[in-house]
């Protein structure tokens, strides 16, 4: 069953460290958003929303609090 809440990333705060992706127990994130800055840093996205279980482990793991769990938009 799809999670009620999913992670939302604030790219103004995120530094693309990847700890969220590493912590995710179902590998539903991906470091593939390379258009945020001029360096082509690879920022996280929720690449496989159907796999997300809404556990919020990514939110907890983020060192800079750039992730917030938010209600899934239907």
């Amino acid at each position, binding site marked *: 069953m799809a999670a009620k809440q999913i992670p939302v990333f604030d790219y103004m*705060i995120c*530094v*693309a*460290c*990847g*700890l969220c992706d*590493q*912590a*995710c*127990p*179902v*590998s539903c994130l991906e*470091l593939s958003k*390379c258009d945020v800055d001029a*360096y*082509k*840093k*690879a920022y996280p996205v929720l690449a496989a929303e159907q796999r997300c279980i809404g556990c919020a*482990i990514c939110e*907890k*793991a*983020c*060192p*800079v*609090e750039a992730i917030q769990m938010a209600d899934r938009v239907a």
Partner: protein
Amino acid sequence: MKGYVGKVLFVNLSSGEIRAESVPDAVYEQYLAGVGLGAYFLYQHIPAGADPLGPENMLGLVSGLLTGTPGFMTGRWLAVCKSPLTGGWGDANCGGTLAPAIKQCGYDAIFFTGAAAEPVYLYVDQRRAELRPANHVWGLDAVEAEQILQKENWKAKKPDVAVIGTAGENLSLIAGICNDGGRMAARSGVGAVMGSKRLKAVVLAGVKPIGCQDPATMKKYSKQLAARVRKQNVPGLVRGGLFPLAGRMLSRMKKTAPLDGFMTVMLLKKWGSIMNNGMGATSGDSPIKNWRGSVVDYDASHYRNINPDHIVRRETRKYHCAGCAVGCGGIVDIRDIHGGEFTHTHKPEYETCASFGGLVMNKDLGTILYINELLNRAGMDSISAGGTVAFAIECYENGILTPEMTGGLELSWGNAAAIVELVKRMIARQGIGDLLADGVKAAAAKLGSRSSAYAVHAGGQEPGMHDSRMDPLLGLHFSADPTPGRHTIGSGQYYDILHLWEKVSWAPPGLSHLKDEDYVASEEAGVKSVACSCYKEVLDGAGGCYYAMLMGVNNWDLFKYLEAATGWGKTADEYMEIGKRIQTLRQMFNIKQGIDPWQFKMSSRMIGEPPLQAGPLKGRTVPIDDLMRVHWKTFGWGENTGIPTPETVAGLGLDALQAEGV
């Protein structure tokens, strides 16, 4: 939790026995995790005189105490073992995503003994650990094998994989262990040890969260660092072509002074370690032509081709180790090189550009990028491989290697096609490549004494691409560290950047001084080198990044991070005491294995005997014997022997281990 898990895994590959062992908190308080935990177990478990490629050797994959916590720049893991390259303590450091994955399985470290009868890999998650057949991936390169094992074992979480390529399988003494599509724990021959155990890979699929004492405080520090990193950017007008000019200016300066290491952040963000490509040549930092040349030989017509801008233009994306706020790595497109054999490669490090650039007089960037991918896939150390190719060219130049011996390869300086072919033969152990696949010391032993003058190494390991004649304390660490030939431990420049004096009571302040003063083995030089050594061991116990170290403790405060993670209430001085304990235990490991510390003294060329006749390091000689003596004495080791004294061993609480371990 205090950052660490409190458990390690032991795997006997001969019997198949796998057991977990809890580790008392007191061990972490004395040794941290990472290299310290490795030293604690390897010292006790590896018998004196053990064959590095035999079943008695123990190979550990160890994760840092801070790894996986909200502490930035702490995503490093180490492979530790008795080195087949040096005969003493071996370790190799790597980033990527593997370091937290070890802890996510519920262990701070995994140790292997014995040897499997057939190729195997270890699968681990938070519930089980089991050995599985690996015949289907044996013989594949590290990237191919990683992709197959990842796919096979991807249930919920995408697994992380540590894997050897064919170099490790072929027991090349300069083989490393790879992860993340070609990142490598490259040094000390750790890949050969893994190959000798017929252990192709370790697959980690655990999902356990990694906790620490005070995550809110750690996040507060990380947010402060992230904000500063974000603002640290190179002005648009600054191009890679300016670096050689900066290097030339540096080489002409008579004085040196403490620097703010945070300025390196902007350079790393834009270029990564390759910022030093041309600057190293003009400043004298990069060894040229097998350490006998200079920028007079490898001039602008050469180094302008390895301008870092040429590499960054190929970058399709940046690449971060887990928990890094900077992101010095990258993935570069190489489809136009060598007939499109490979689509991409990890951005080569400066070390690779220098070892296959100035060291062998090559000016073809495409060759460097291609060799980078060849070596990453084979799992062969690019520093040692480049050093060995340079040795081979000089042997050829002097008639020690003949066209018959090289199978028709014309090994002349800068002959890019021949260099590529030689690297391929070293990887495959084919023809002359078989003789060279174990590094310069082993090759010189086979080719006879006339070749030993061209075998540039320290204790059997080819040195990093930074010239000791430019920074004598770097040469000291090349020679006096229990893992010789390493450029990542310390130097005079490092000391001036680390700003340890702001945290550590006994660290002398960095002051502006004449460069000439660095060529004197003063008591202060001993204190500075000991400070660098101790701090590096704390760093490697924490899983910290070398480039974070070079930001300086005034910018990246490792001690504060450790306190927030553990809540131990230790001072910086007390953490440095832990560093001293780890370093002394690594030296004790070498003594136990029969190493005479003098045998690690770097080769004559690295000392400046005879001195160079041209270039920025003209006339420079390092007083290495005196520096080694003052370093050992300051450490509390025998001034003339390098053996830790009984008083030092007892003072660090290592006497009980020594009684059990020897």
